[in-house]
């Protein structure tokens, strides 16, 4: 299950990227995972929770956007959904010189975080009575 290695890499990268940010908590980490990336989303969710323990990301949620596989034929320009398992011959000209437009993504898109210490201080108690 390489999803544990991937989860550790995500935590490591997010932790590193937020090092210079003001203190706060990480609420959500958003990933793009391509249909052809060879990653099981459930296993990644499970591993992510474990990988976050004891780090600045503890308690963070993982949001995975699945990206469908798409290919384009280089000679004829036809574009198609690859499906899973993928069909990578051009459906129009039967050529073998296609390339992926999408589907192998495995990227950290963004992080939602809440800054600490910038919460407005409560208004001073009134001294009316």
């Amino acid at each position, binding site marked *: 299950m*390489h999803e544990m290695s991937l989860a550790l890499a995500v935590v490591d990268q*997010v932790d590193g990227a937020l090092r210079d940010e003001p203190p706060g908590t990480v609420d959500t980490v958003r990933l793009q995972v391509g249909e*052809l*990336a060879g990653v099981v989303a459930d296993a990644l969710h499970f591993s992510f929770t474990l990988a976050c323990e004891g780090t600045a990301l503890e308690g963070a949620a993982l949001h995975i956007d699945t990206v469908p596989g798409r290919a384009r034929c280089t000679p004829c320009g036809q574009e198609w959904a690859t499906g899973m398992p993928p069909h990578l011959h051009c459906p129009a000209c039967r050529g073998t010189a296609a390339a992926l437009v999408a589907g192998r993504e*495995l990227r950290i898109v*963004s992080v939602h*975080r*809440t800054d600490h210490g910038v919460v407005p201080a409560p208004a001073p108690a009134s001294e009316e009575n």
Partner: protein
Amino acid sequence: MCRVVDLQQAVLAENDRRARALRSELTARGTSVVNLLSSPGSGKTALLEAELTLARSRGIPVAALTADLATENDARRLGRSGAPVKQVLTDGLCHLEADMLRGHLDGWLPDGTRVLFVENVGNLVCPATYDLGETLRVALCSVTEGEDKPLKYPTAFGLAHLVLVTKSDLADAVGFDEAAFRAHVQQINPGVETVLTSTRTGEGAGVLLEHALAAHGNAPAHRPVMARQVLPREHGHTHHHDGVAHSHS
């Protein structure tokens, strides 16, 4: 205050960076790396032992690194060829990563090695995602595993530069449908060469070595569709594609 921090980083960026560095370093040293992927029991070790023995008989300097969760059995078997062999125990990890490979080469890989064969952990899922800095990636499948194996493990077979069928001597006994297997490979990896091999009959002997030597110092002759990436047609907004998959031109 809630904020969104835009990161746009490839999860495998660090592994891919180390793999590229290792590929450049070894190419400069005249060594090409062959990454062998298959299920456990497909016959990677038997085929590799035969190819190492063949290389030695031709005076070609080759070496092999074999990864397993436990035991040094494979290193002992491969060592019978006389080639330098190193066993890597992954302590339960299901795949090799570029920095692990790098760490095992220092002080071991003999200068002048033409081909370093890396027998990955027997597993068609996890190793498929990790670039090790190889020049040639080979996916193996024995005739006993079923013709639809490439469809079940599309990343492993889809990114291969060469597909080898092993144990072809058993093909008739198990009713292996060669045409169906080839069609499935072509569906996910159009244009890749598929060769039948058997260490019992000698069918396909030397094919792995020939491909490894041909890939030496150059990009592999075959470029899998799955390893090529093009940018989407522009729709007026920016797309980020670094690190997702790179094409070699």
